[in-house]
């Protein structure tokens, strides 16, 4: 939880009793929890940017749990999901797990099992968050490059020598050297291999 943002456990279950008891259980170990009666409520709510996970009932009125999972995937929201259900069949479980669910729990479940899974999901999400944050930073740096510098960076990471880059772009070798220096500086890369790794993450290629 290096970002310092508080972790949140979202709970969606249409059964009020179930919803309240899970929220209470999560809060009893000192985690923050928010609960919703259906998927629409969850989708229209303001959500914090910190690490989070979703405890999701499979059967829901309106959008079902599995549909919500697909919806979130399509929208690019990568929140770890823990499914809970009254009775699970194998195809349902397989579908949910294939789509990236963290765990599939059958009601009634052991409290410790749920809490363990929630912890694992939050850990996983905070790592993802960290990666996301680093990538965002890299993108910010890359955005600061001029069009010419980007061209040069693309050619540099493809392994070309300054002389070759100069011929390719129709510029003098000196100009290329200066551009190259700016690129290393702006991207905060200490070495060529590090720049290549950055380009890889940014999917910059030539």
């Amino acid at each position: 939880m290096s970002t310092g943002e508080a972790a949140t456990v979202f709970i969606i279950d249409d059964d009020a009793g179930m919803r309240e008891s899970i929220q209470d259980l999560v809060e009893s170990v000192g985690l923050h929890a928010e609960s919703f009666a259906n998927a629409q409520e969850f989708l229209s709510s303001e959500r914090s940017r910190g690490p989070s996970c979703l405890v999701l009932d499979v059967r829901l009125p309106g959008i079902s749990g599995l549909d919500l999972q697909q919806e979130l995937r399509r929208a690019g929201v990568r929140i770890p999901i823990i499914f809970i259900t009254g009775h699970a069949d194998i195809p349902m479980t397989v579908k949910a797990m294939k789509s990236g669910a963290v765990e599939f729990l059958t009601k009634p479940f052991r409290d410790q099992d749920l809490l363990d899974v929630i912890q694992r999901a939050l850990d996983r999400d905070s790592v993802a968050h960290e990666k996301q944050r680093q990538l965002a930073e890299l993108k910010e740096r890359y955005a600061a490059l001029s069009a010419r510098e980007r061209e040069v960076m693309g050619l540099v990471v493809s392994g070309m020598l300054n002389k070759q880059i100069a011929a390719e772009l129709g510029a003098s070798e000196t100009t290329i050297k200066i551009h190259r220096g700016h690129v290393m500086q702006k991207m905060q890369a200490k070495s060529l291999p590090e720049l290549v790794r950055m380009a890889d993450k940014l999917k910059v290629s030539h």
Partner: protein
Amino acid sequence: MRAGAWLSILVASSVCAFALDPSLDISQYAHTAWKIREGFTKGTIFSIAQTPDGYLWLGTEFGLVRFDGVQDIPWRPPDGEQLPSNWIHALLVAHDGTLWIATEKGLASWKDGKLTGYPEVAGSVVTSLLQDAEGTLWFGVRDPGRLCAVRVAKTQCYGAGSFGWSVPALYEDHKGNLWASAQTGLWRWAPGPPEHYRLPGGPVEARALIQGDNGALLMATGRSGPHAGPVIGLIDGLKQLVGGKIRRYALPGITGQFKPTRLFRSSDGSLWVGTAGGLLHLHQGTIDRFSVTDGLSGNFIRDIFEDREGNVWVSTEAGLDRFREFAASTVSENQGLSTSAAYLVEATPDGSIWTITADGLNRLQNGHVIVYGKRSVPGQNRETDERELIIKPRTTEIANSGLQGTVYALGQDDEGRLWAGGSEGVFYFDRGRFALVPGVPGGNILAIAGDGSGKVWISNLDYGLVHSTPEGAVQRIPWAEFGHKDAAVALLPDRLQGGLWLGFLNGGIAYLKNGQIRSSYNVANGLGVGSVNDLQLGSDGAVWAATEGGLSRVKDGVVTTLTSRNGLPCDAVNSVIEDNDHSFWLYMACGLVRIAHSELDGWVSDSKRSIQTTVFYSSDGVRSRALAGGHSRLVAKSPDGKIWFSPPDGVSVTDPRHLPFNNLPPPVFVRQITADGKKYDPSPGSRLPPLARDVWIDYTALSFVAPEKVRFRFKLEGQDPDWKEVVNERQAQYSNLPPRKYRFRVTACNNSGVWNQEGAFLDFTIAPAYYQTYGFRALCAAVVLALVWLLLRLRIRQVHQQEQGFREAIETIPAMAFTARPDGSRTFVNRRWLEYTGLSTEQAAGSGWGAAVHPDDLSRVLEKWRISLATGEPLNYEARFRGADGEYRWFHVRAVPLRDDDGKTLKWYGVATDIEDRKRAEEAARRSESELRDLIESVPAMVFIALQGPSNAFASRRWREYTGLSAEETQGLGWQGVVHPEDLERHMEKWRACSVTGEHYEDETRFRRAADGEYRWFLVRAVPLRDETGHVLKWYGVLTDIEERKQAEQALQRSEAYLLEAQRLSHIGSFIYNPATQKTPYWSEELFRIFGFEPQQDGQAPAEASQIIHPEDFDRTSTECREAFRDKAEFTQDFRLVLHDGTLKHLHVIWHPILDKEGELVEYVGTAADVTERKRAEEERERLHQLEADLAHMNRVTMLGELASSLAHEINQPIAAAITSANACLRWLARNPPDLERARAAATRIERDGGRAAEIIQRLRTFCKTGTPPQRELVDINEVVGEILVLLRDEASEHSISLRTELAPQLPQIMADRVQLQQVLMNLMLNGIEAMSDGGGELTIRSQRSEHGYLLISVSDTGEGLPGEKADLIFNAFYTTKPQGTGMGLAISRSIIEAHGGRLWATTNTQRGATFHFTVPAEVHQ
């Protein structure tokens, strides 16, 4: 339903008379491919069109190509003109026949030899073409995208800027909407203001548009933009426009992404989707594919087109493909056969087709294949053995069906059950399994056949002929007893005579009856040589044998054989069958051969005659077998009349009543003329140089179904004496043609033999050389003329000599003959004439002959002559001529004129015949008839004399007075006017009949009385008068007035008919019984019918009537009768009848005594009513009452079963919540310090959840109560709704359905059975949930007050809605739309509500779904 209507409109509106059979897969069509790599055209064909002259035009990247099915000829514009670009993007033939050409650099059109350009769009890429219903031509232009229209004066373009880069597709739907696809999305351009629809999913554009089966617009989409290559990405696929939104259009069975390029609907209604990976074909709910691996020229489909003959053409990046229908289609592995190598075919009456493959017996049924495998081992677990394995989408395999070993022969028994014989024995198929026939040895079984007496004959190579029933073998005859070393390969039971025909492997047939060979035939008797492969019984009772040496016919001991000498295409016949139209089908080594009924009849009556046959070769989809191979069943006829046969690669079928026939005569063209290597245009009057040695004329005919079968007839008039006929040869060659004008005529017929009647011709001239001038020919002509003149002179002399001879003959003949000039004056009279009249030749000449005519007759004779001379009509009269002795005798004179070619009379020729004797006899007859007539006139009766049947000659005075007709009016057919119009035809018909047979005439007819205009009935009788040879001379007839009798008859008939009808309608018969004589003088017709007897004329009770009284009722009935008869009492009785056919009837009989004045019993009059129906109805009502009660309980139990799993979940829910809360509670308590507040809250929830679980169980218990009688109590309806909601909440959320209630507060209570109300609500709500189970939705339950003190409760869903016209049916018992439903739910609900005094009905919602309403009367508040 809507989709179906759509399709039928589409199919009906297609004008083309030809179409493919939509039930077939692409791979079942005849396919031909032309490949660019093999020299066909030069580059990719982007578009195909057909102009009205019949040519197929191909637009390629190297220009336009014309194609006649054989040769592709590059098209060149007229000299000095050119297309904007040779890269053709699209072609279109407009309604007026104009060919529109869309190119890389602009638009052009071609009509009547004129090429037109469109400068407004010169230089731009034209991508698409469309002509709308009004005839306006639209086209799409690229960079920037514009939509343009060609109008009369100029070309106008629209939408620059709003279409983005390009407009790749245009389409007009069936409602007249003009659609344009653009880079910016889909536009509905006209009519009205343009509407725009965005395509979801990134830079996408529609490449092709078409209306789908359901009427929605379909589009083939792909990546848009200038460099859109054939990249398969997420954005490709079919999409459709529904409700203003563009959505993905999924094809059943097609998973993953594919890139559609073209959409096309053929006239059979199928949808063809061209993709970057081959063809997809959507037809009758199924999809099949065809790609390079199946033989397609290439995988990237560029265009799809259907020509006038119904051929479908597909162009790909690598060539051109044609698909057409075969006369016979083949079912192979592609269509579900377990392997394509199959042999034998058998058709059972249930419509199944059976064939044998290496891995088992295959059964084709409704497009599906069931394989009865042989790989199984007996004795395994039956349950798993019989499990059906779906191995291919169209194939099911039954692992252990009871069939063992390899099957060699198939046959049928009399019940139409399939028998299969092979290595492990003989089996028959019954109720889905094969049963072994005990005691019948297996081995090399050759044939099996049922014989119509319940038994089956089996031919076994090693064992002999076995006669068997399903229970086992009954008889065995070794082959040696037939005098044969070989075995019978064909068996034919002769159902007419009861014997069995056998056809032997090494030749010969034998007839076996009652265990003895009655007759046998072989080659020496005229039978075809070699193996007898098949036997069939013809409809005329003849036996037909398919032999290696022809088709033999055996009838009444005479054998005749049809061979290639009589017109068969070859000799080896594998199998023979007769179709429903009595045509014969022979499966032969050289194809499938059809012999028409009439042809065969002709051959039967004269076995030397040659016959015409229709032969289906491989180009018709028929593969033949060289040898029958010892199998007798290579053809079969299914119950629908189709002929099935067994080629080596599947099972083929042809429908004799739907053979594809091309009735479009092919257009014919003379393409060019070549003289000594130099080409000349085929313009009329082409002039070729003198002394042209070799002249070649190229011609063609445009039929694309099978160009190789096109036949041509051609003739060079003046050179060829007769027409020459060639097949698919498209060039004629002539050498050393003399100089003159020529006309070359050519015509052609298509693959079905339909000729173009007009054909084509070309006039050309070969110029003469200097010595080939006319001077020389004129000289020759002069010499010939001189010769002819000499010959003519000789001929005239001969004619003169002949005339002299004729004159001598006339002089000596024994008749009076003469000739006269056109003015009548005699030029010649013969010797007889002169001898009779005693006149000299000079006296008779001119008009002198008149002196011999009786003075009284002369003026009449001269008048006759005058008329004939004026009109030229032949002359004909009778007159007295004076003989040389002064006596006059009667003569009959005839004369005819001789005319020249112009019709002018040249001469009269005449003869006079002596008729004196005849005249005298006539006079005598006339006198005696006159006397008779006077007599008749004075007789007071209506008498007539007729000549030939109805033609009257005389009617007596009484008759004339009655009818008011004059004597003249009664002559001939004048009397018809007084006959009643209804009687006339019958009356005349009888006359015609009697005139022919000469029988006495008798008829009753109405004639009109003149006095009052009334028609009265008469009996007309006439007898013929004959001469001594028996020839009828005339008829004498009398008419008798029978009006009174007729009226009495009719009155009686009417009253009898009324009584009969009344009895029949009421099922009441009547009778009279005399106890004293024990006789029944009268039994009504209906009574016979009630007792099940044939009505009898005498109307007396049948003797066995009392025998069919039910034995249990007989004694009682007899006693009742005896006692009543004794007391002379009126009485009734009820008893039953058992009819001879076993029918049971209930009778109610009333007996009424008739007493005389003294009170003595005369007889009983009685009626007997058939009350069976009434009795049955009473019993039925009782039974239904019980059934209804049973079903109501069953329904409730069924619903509980359905609910069980979700109820388990429902109870699980509060328990899980309670456990979780308990854990949380413990954790709060375990904290340091313990959080007692939170712990208490958790404990409170545990208690609440526990209570919830208990509540659910309580509700369930009340609902489950069974057997309790209905108990009415005061019920709060909202409370009942709440109870059911608890039970169904989970079921609803499983299907993503939200439950909503709108319950009116403080409703009055109702007096009702709580459990029954729960049942109704649960039924309605489960129905609603069911209706929405696929896509979720909302279920709303409302309660409210209604009029007249009723409560109204309604349950609304947002599901499918009511099934349209079936809305009324849903309340019927056993009507269900659910796969597992009993169909009782709604019926029971309705009867419950009606028992409560309410009403239950359903309505369709305005938006979506349906609402069920019911009312119940509210209890009035005290």
